[in-house]
C-alpha cells in the first residue's frame, strides 16, 4: 500500500490569467477507488484546476502524474487518452446526434473506414445496462432529460475506459430520486477502481458520497482531509476564511419607505417564487452561489427575460414590464454582470455607449444633438473620474474599471430610481472599486433603491443594509443585522 503511487497526482499547478492569479501551486491527489470532493467558493479555482486536468487549459507551471508517470496534456484529446474524463456542468453533447453517436463521438468504432454501427450499439447497450439507463440509445440527445444526458456523458467516459472521472456539480439539475441513482452509480464506479473528483456546493451530499475532501480558496490548497475528520462547520470556515481587509466607505443612510416590491417571481427552475422589497436609500444584497438564480431574478424584474408569474411594484404602483425598454422607462437601470457581452457595444466609442439609453432625451426631431451629448458625457467623465483619452475612444480598449464607470455613467444620466448592480466590482482594481462603492452610497443617499448582486462575501457584508441569500432559485434566508453577520452565516444559507 505504501509504495503504490496514487492514480492521479497534480503537483504545484500554477495558472494565471490577465490580472488574476487563478491557481497558486495547487496539489491534488486521487487514489483508485476513491471519491474526492473538491470544495471552494466561487472563483476559488476549482473550475480552472479541472480545465487543466481535462487538457482544455495549460498550466503555467506544475506537473500531472498518472500512476506516478508524468504526462503532458496539450489538448482534451491527450487527457482522454490518459484516461481522464471531465463532465462539465454544461454537457458536451451534440444535441442532434443520438446517444450512441455521442458516446462514440471522436472514438468511432470503424471497419474499413465505415462506422461499425452494430458493434457500437452492442457496446452502448452494455454500458446502458451497467449504468441502469432505461432509454433508447438511438434517441437524439436533445430529447433526453438532464439526468439521461448525464448518463450519456458517463457512458461516454466509460466507453474509452476512463479511470479518472471529474464531475462538476452533477447533482445541480437533478431531482432527489435521480441524485440517489447517481450516487449508486458512483459507488459502483468506485468498486471498479475509478478515481472520482466530485465538485459540489451541497454540503449535505458531500457527507454521503465523499471519501476525502479537498478545499481550495483563492487558488490555493487550504485543507485536505478524510471525510471522517471534518465537520460541516469546518468546511464552511475553510471555504470562506477570507479576511475582511477591503476598505468600504461608511454607510450613513437610513432606509425609508419601500420603493421596489416584487412578489411571486417565477421562471422555470431558475427563479422559484421570489419576493422581496427594497426601500428608499437602501442597498439590498442578493447573494448566493453562481447559478443560484440571482442574475435571473434581476433579469426578470428588468424585463430582459419573460416571467411566468410575479408582480412588480414601484412606489406602490403596479408595473407591467415586458421589455428592458419598459423597465428603463419606469426608472430602472441594470449594470450587467458581463460588461463585455451585455453592458457595452465594445466596437463603438465610449460616447456612443454613454448615449445609448439616453438618446431620446438627447435628440430633437430624431436628430441627436451632438453638442449636448458631448457636454453631458464630459460632465460624467469628470464626476466619475473616467480615464479616457477622448470621447471617441473605443469602449473595448478601456480597463475594466473604466468600462464599468462608462456603464454607470449611462445609467446615472438617466436618473434611474432603482439600480441593479450585478457583480459591480468584478475584474476591477482596488482603487476603482472604492470609487464605485462611494458612488453606490451617494446614490442611496439620494433616495434611490439599490439591488446589488455579489459573490464577494466581504463586499456583501461591507456594503449592504440587508442581505438576501438565494439557493437554487429560492430565497433561503434574510440577514437584517448585517453588522453582526459573518461570512460563515451567509455560506451556510447559500449551500443550504
Amino acid at each position, binding site marked *: 500500500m505504501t509504495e503504490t503511487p496514487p492514480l492521479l497526482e497534480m503537483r504545484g499547478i500554477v495558472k494565471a490569467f490577465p490580472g488574476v492569479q487563478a491557481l497558486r501551486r495547487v496539489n491534488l491527489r486521487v487514489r483508485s477507488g476513491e471519491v474526492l470532493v473538491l470544495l471552494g467558493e466561487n472563483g476559488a479555482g476549482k473550475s480552472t484546476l479541472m480545465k487543466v486536468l481535462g487538457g482544455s487549459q495549460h498550466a503555467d507551471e506544475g506537473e500531472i502524474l498518472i500512476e506516478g508517470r508524468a504526462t503532458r496534456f496539450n489538448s482534451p484529446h491527450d487527457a482522454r487518452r490518459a484516461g481522464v474524463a471531465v463532465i462539465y456542468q454544461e454537457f458536451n453533447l451534440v444535441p442532434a446526434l443520438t446517444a450512441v453517436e455521442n458516446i462514440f463521438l471522436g472514438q468511432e468504432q470503424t471497419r474499413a473506414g465505415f462506422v461499425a454501427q452494430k458493434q457500437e450499439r452492442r457496446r452502448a447497450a452494455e454500458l446502458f445496462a451497467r449504468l441502469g439507463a432505461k432509454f433508447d440509445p438511438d434517441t437524439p440527445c436533445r430529447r433526453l432529460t438532464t439526468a439521461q444526458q448525464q448518463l450519456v456523458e458517463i457512458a461516454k467516459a466509460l466507453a474509452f475506459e476512463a479511470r479518472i472521472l471529474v464531475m462538476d456539480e452533477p447533482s445541480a439539475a437533478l431531482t432527489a430520486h435521480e441524485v440517489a441513482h447517481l450516487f449508486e452509480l458512483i459507488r459502483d464506479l468506485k468498486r471498479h477502481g475509478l478515481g472520482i473528483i466530485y465538485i459540489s456546493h451541497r454540503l449535505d451530499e458531500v457527507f454521503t458520497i465523499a471519501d476525502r475532501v479537498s478545499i481550495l480558496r483563492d487558488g490555493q490548497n487550504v485543507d485536505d482531509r478524510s471525510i471522517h475528520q471534518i465537520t460541516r462547520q469546518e468546511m464552511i470556515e475553510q471555504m470562506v476564511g477570507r479576511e475582511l481587509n477591503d476598505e468600504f466607505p461608511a454607510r450613513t443612510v437610513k432606509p425609508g419607505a419601500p420603493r421596489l416590491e416584487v412578489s411571486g417571481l417565477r421562471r422555470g427552475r431558475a427563479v422559484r417564487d421570489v419576493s422581496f422589497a427594497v426601500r428608499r436609500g437602501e442597498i439590498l444584497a442578493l447573494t448566493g452561489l453562481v447559478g443560484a438564480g440571482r442574475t435571473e431574478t434581476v433579469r426578470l424584474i428588468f424585463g430582459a427575460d419573460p416571467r411566468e408569474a410575479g408582480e412588480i411594484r414601484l412606489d406602490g404602483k403596479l408595473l407591467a414590464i415586458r421589455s428592458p425598454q419598459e423597465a428603463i*422607462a419606469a426608472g430602472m437601470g441594470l449594470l450587467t454582470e458581463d460588461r463585455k457581452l451585455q453592458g457595452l*457595444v*465594445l466596437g*463603438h466609442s465610449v460616447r456612443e455607449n454613454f448615449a*445609448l439609453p439616453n*438618446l431620446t432625451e438627447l435628440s430633437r426631431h*430624431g*436628430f441627436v444633438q*451632438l453638442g449636448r451629448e458631448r457636454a453631458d458625457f464630459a460632465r460624467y467623465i469628470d464626476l466619475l473620474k473616467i480615464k479616457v483619452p477622448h470621447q471617441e475612444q473605443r469602449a473595448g480598449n478601456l480597463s475594466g474599471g473604466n468600462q464599468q464607470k462608462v456603464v454607470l455613467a449611462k445609467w446615472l444620466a438617466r436618473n434611474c430610481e432603482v439600480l441593479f448592480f450585478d457583480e459591480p466590482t468584478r475584474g476591477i482594481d482596488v482603487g476603482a472599486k472604492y470609487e464605485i462603492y462611494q458612488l453606490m452610497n451617494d446614490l442611496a443617499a439620494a433616495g434611490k433603491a439599490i439591488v446589488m448582486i455579489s459573490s464577494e462575501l466581504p463586499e456583501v457584508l461591507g456594503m449592504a443594509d440587508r442581505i438576501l441569500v438565494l439557493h437554487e432559485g429560492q430565497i433561503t434566508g434574510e440577514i437584517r443585522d448585517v453588522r453582526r453577520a459573518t461570512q460563515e452565516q451567509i455560506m451556510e444559507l447559500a449551500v443550504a
Partner: protein
Amino acid sequence: MKNPLPRFLADYGMMLVLFLLCGFFSVVTHSEQSPTGEAAAKQVATAIQKQFGTQARVLIAASDQPDDAAFVGKTERDLLASGAQVLAVVKGEPKAAREALQKIAASGGTLDAIACTQVTGAWLVFSDLKVDFPTLGEPRIIVPQRYRWPNFLKRENLLNIANQIAVIAIVAIGMTMVIVTGGIDLSVGSLLALSAVLAARFIRDFAGGLDASPAGMFLACLAAILLCGCVGAFSGAMITRFSIPPFIVTLAMMLVGSGLAYLLAKGQSIYQIPDSFVWLGRGADLFNLPNAVVLMVVLYALAHVLMSRMKQGRYLYAVGGNREAARLSGVPVQRVLMFAYVASALLAGLGGVIMASQLKSGSATYGNMYELYVIAAVVVGGTSLSGGEGKMLGTLTGAFTIAVIQNGMNLTNVESYTQKVVLGLVILGAVLLDQSRQRQ
C-alpha cells in the same frame, strides 16, 4: 481630437482605391480624341471667324448622325451670329456635298471655308477642290482640332458610369442598413424585378397604358414600391417575431418575389408604357445630369444624415454592434430591425421602378444576381458583415469601385467572362486591404 486625416482614411480608405483605379484607367485609355457635336462646332466656328473675319462664306458638311445634327445646328448659329454667310448645309452623303458645291459654283459664288467634322473633312470630294471646282476660289477645309484625353474621363463616360450604377447604389443604401444591424437581405434582386413588373402592370392595367398621365404613372410606381415595402415588413416580422435567421427568411422571399414577378408578368415583358415614363431613368434635367443619378445623390445624402446624425442611425449601429447590450439599454431592437428590412425593400422597389423606366418595360428577369452585386458594393465599401460598423458613403464608394472596374474593362476591351473573374478577385482584394488597414 486626433489628426483628422488618418481618421478620414480609416473611414473612407476605399475612396483612395477608387481614385487609384480611376487614375489607372485614365492612363490606360488615354488616346486621341476628336471633338464632336457642339464642342466641335464651337471650335470650328471660332476658327473660321479668326481666319476669315465676319464676312466669311461657308459651307457646312456633316453626316446624318445625331451628334452631327448638333454640330450643324451650333455651327450655323454661331457663324450667322458672327455675320458669316452659310451658303449651304450638307447633311448626309458625299454625293450631297458634291451637288451643293456644284450649285454654288453654278451660281458663280466663291467659298472661303468648309466647316467639317473629323469624318466629313476626309471625304474625297473635298480632297482636290482646286481641280474639281476652280471657280470657287480656294476654300479651306476647317476640321475640329484633335487632342489627347482619356476615354475614361470623358464626360459622357463618367455620367454613363454613374447612370449604370445608380440602381445598384440605391438598393445598397438599404442593404447597408440591414448589414449594419448584423443581418443580410438576399431578396432585393427579386423585389427589384417584382417592383418593375408591378409598376409596369399598374400603368398598363389601371393608369391607361400608353396614354397614362404622369400622375397615374407616379401612383402606379408608388404602389409598386409600397408593395415591396410590405414584403420587407413580412421578412422583418419573420426575423423579429419568430427569430428565423435573416439569411433564411430573405432567401425564401427571394424565391417568392421572383416567382411572383414571373407570375404577374406571365413570363413576358410588359411594354405598354408611355414614352414619357423614361423620364426617371433616362432623362437629364438638372445641369444635364441623369435624373437617376441626381436621385441617387439625394438619397445618399439623406441616408448619410440618418446614419450619422439621427437616433435611428445610432440604434441601427447599436443593434448590430451588440444586440443584447442594446436591448438592455432600452433600444427597441425589434422595431429597429423592422425599419432596416422595410427600408431595404422600399429601396429595392425604387430600384425596380428606375430600371423599368430605363428600359421602358417591366420584366421578371430584371435584377437577376443584383443582390450579390449590392452586397459586394456594401462590403467593398468597408461595412463589416458581422454588423455594427460601416459608413453610407463607404457603400457609395464601393458601388462606384465596382462600376469603374466594369467600365474600365469595357473600355479596354476585356471580354465579359474575364471581367467576372477580375471583379471577383477585386472584391476579395478590396476587403483584404480594408481589414489589414483596420488592424493597424
